[in-house]
């Protein structure tokens, strides 16, 4: 059983990995109006998307002051927050997104080390 599982797992993984490579990312970035951090966050995220997710991402930027209704839907507590809606699982990243590696990691674009 375990072997079969492991084999299944491997196949699943491989399949998942392949699929992952073609998967479309849906991202949503929540910012708080025009602040320096929001500014930085927007720029950072855009850069990352362009570099690592070229042509396979949808990025939506939402100003929490202008669209307060959406906060509940995504359970936003703070801004700036980047939500990875797709692919699963849902991930939440907080801050000005200055640390590129952290973001990539958070978006599962980097393998976990160790």
């Amino acid at each position, binding site marked *: 059983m375990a072997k079969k599982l492991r084999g299944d797992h491997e196949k699943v993984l491989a399949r998942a990995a392949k699929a992952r490579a073609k998967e479309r990312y849906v991202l949503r970035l929540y*910012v*708080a*109006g*025009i*602040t*320096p*951090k*929001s500014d930085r966050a927007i720029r950072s995220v855009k850069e990352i998307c362009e570099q690592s997710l070229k042509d396979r991402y949808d990025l939506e930027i939402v100003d*929490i*002051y202008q669209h*307060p209704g959406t*906060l*509940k839907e995504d*359970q*936003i*507590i*703070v*801004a*700036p927050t980047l939500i990875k809606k797709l692919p699963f*699982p849902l991930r*939440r*990243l*907080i*801050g*000005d997104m200055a640390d590129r590696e952290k973001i990539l990691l958070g978006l599962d674009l980097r393998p976990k080390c160790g």
Partner: protein
Amino acid sequence: MRNKSGKSVKHTNADIQIAIELPASSRNSTCLPPDLSTTELSRENAELRAQLAEAQATLHAIREGEVDAIVVSGSQGEQIFSLTGVETVYRLIVETMKEAAFTVAFDGTILFANARFEEYVKRPMEKILGHALHELVPQDQCPAVESLLTAAQKEPVKCRLVFQGADGTLIPAFVLSNLLNQPDGMSICMVAMDLTELENSTHLIQELRRQKDALRKSQERLQLLSSCASRLLASDNPQSIINELCREVMTHLDCQAFFNFLADEQAGKLHLNAFGGISEEEALNIEWLDYGAAVCGCAARQGCCIIAEDILNVPDTRADLVRNYGIQAYCCHPLMAQGSVVGTLSFGTKTRPHFTPEEVEVMRTVADQVAVAMQRLLNVQALREFNESLEQSVNERTAEVQRQTTRLRALAAELGQAEQRERKRLASILHDHIQQLLVAAQMHLGLVKRADSMTIGPAIQGVESIIREAIDASRSLAMDLSPPILHQGGLVPALGWLANRIEEKNLFKVRVRADNAAEPEMEPVRLLLFESIRELLLNAIKYSGAHEAEIMMMRTPDDWTRITIEDKGSGFDPEVANASRNGLGLFGIQQRLTHIGGKMEIESAPGQGTRVSLLVPPEKTRKDTLEPAADASEIDEQALIGFSQKKNKICILLADDHRIVRQGLSSLLQLEPDLDIVAEAEDGEQALKLARRLKPDVVVADVSMPGMDGVELTRMLLREMPGIKVLGLCMHIEKDVAAAMRDAGAVGYLAKSGLSEDLITAIRACAAGR
């Protein structure tokens, strides 16, 4: 505690309530369903770990200040709290933007204002915040502020508002207002844009438009004036086109009436020549206007432009006439030609009470043009008349010249013929008389040859007597042709001889009274006079029907030689004689006399005898001579008048110590048009002073004045002013006084008791230089 959606709410005393939402699958958790498998457990575990990591990360971020805002769900719903530093950018925008932003409460109290607003109202912030908006606008804008505040409470409003700075300057602004929904109350947010520049440029555009209008108007004006000028110049009768012109000017100036008066010299008033804007009947009422009446009369009398403005309100009697027509402003210009007023041109408007300087200028220019056109006509007229008179003069002269030429030609022809006749006469005398005698003598000599000693004596005697006769005949002929006495003795004896001869031959008595002193000096003159006299005598013998004539020969006071031939015969009309062939003789004499500077005068009328005078000028330059005034000094009047007409007037200084005499002389002389008394003096000293100052032409001075007498005066005058002429006056003529005056340099000496005409002619002669 869990509510329905699985949210857990924590209440603390702090203002900020943080609710951390956990995913639905997590639980506050001692209740773990016991029947979950390991896989499920480990999955749940992983999830929980991830969520925990997220929550930790969130808290970390908050603590580290990496977030800008926190979303809080409270009893009032979702609320976003901004953390410090976030509003800097907004604040920056509001403070640095080019518009003024401020918020006011509903009652107008200013709650917030940015720096730009401070600039607009030129007040420090302390004077703005908490003060009413009404304080920052000029008085007249307060109602506008009120209405703005009221309207802005319901909906967004846009309007124009003028702010007033503390220094009084006004700033027009475009204000947009919006309701502000703040948690602790409603207020109005306003943004104001400075309209100054925009309005300035609008102002500039308006100014440009206005200038363009002015330019257009000025162009119209120019066109109108030049069209007027060209039409007036082209027209031969400017008066007739005044109507048309003035109507155009009226349209351009927006006037409703015009009047053109022309000065009528005969009537001494102004006559209405053209008008517009009033009825025909009304025009009849004002057809004649006196100088000084109404505006036009005043303008004509004073010769200057008169403007009456605001007529309806300002009492001005001159404008009464036009006030009745409803005219508010009226301007009248005089028409000036050759320095005098020939009429007026005026315009009146009912639409406004004042004329602008440009409008007055247009009217003045039109009036000037009309006046110039009229003057041009006058000049053209005068020129034409002058031309005509000139032509006439030329024609007359030409006719005269032609007449003279014809006569001269005729004379020349006649002369030729006369010469022929004379030769024929001579030839016939020679042939008929002398030749016959010589032939007879020859025949007798033939007889003598054949005669014997008895008859030879008487035969020779016969021949002698024939020869003697021949000699007489030839001498007589020679004498007839050229009397030697004329050459040897002179004209006077020659005249005597002629008289005798004529008496013998023609049985015509000739009386000669000749003054030896009148003998002309030059031979050709003597010859000419002799032949002329002979011809005139022959005329008298042939035509007058009389049996005697008289010849007088004398010298005139100014040294001319005058010869008069007079008979009391039938006389003739000199005009008729001139035209006839016989008149050529007279014409010839006249021409020859004129040639040497003399003249001939004929006085004759049918039935009244004939007197012909021949005058010959002196050969030498004139000497000062004194003649007793008792003799009628026949001065040639015609020559004198001709001379004094050249001068304008003869200036005379009278000096006489008797006032009555002076007055008498003065009034006598003043009657003469060519004599002018410039001064009167009582004695010699005064006369001298006045003469020095006034430099008269002639000084008439009494010789016997007290102090400096006439002789002394004459001497002094002539020393200082050599060209001056002095005439002496006295009660009676005395030879030595006369001589003294002559020596002093006076030109004449007259008796006061003499004829006035003598004095006048003497003065004229003096002035003429004779």
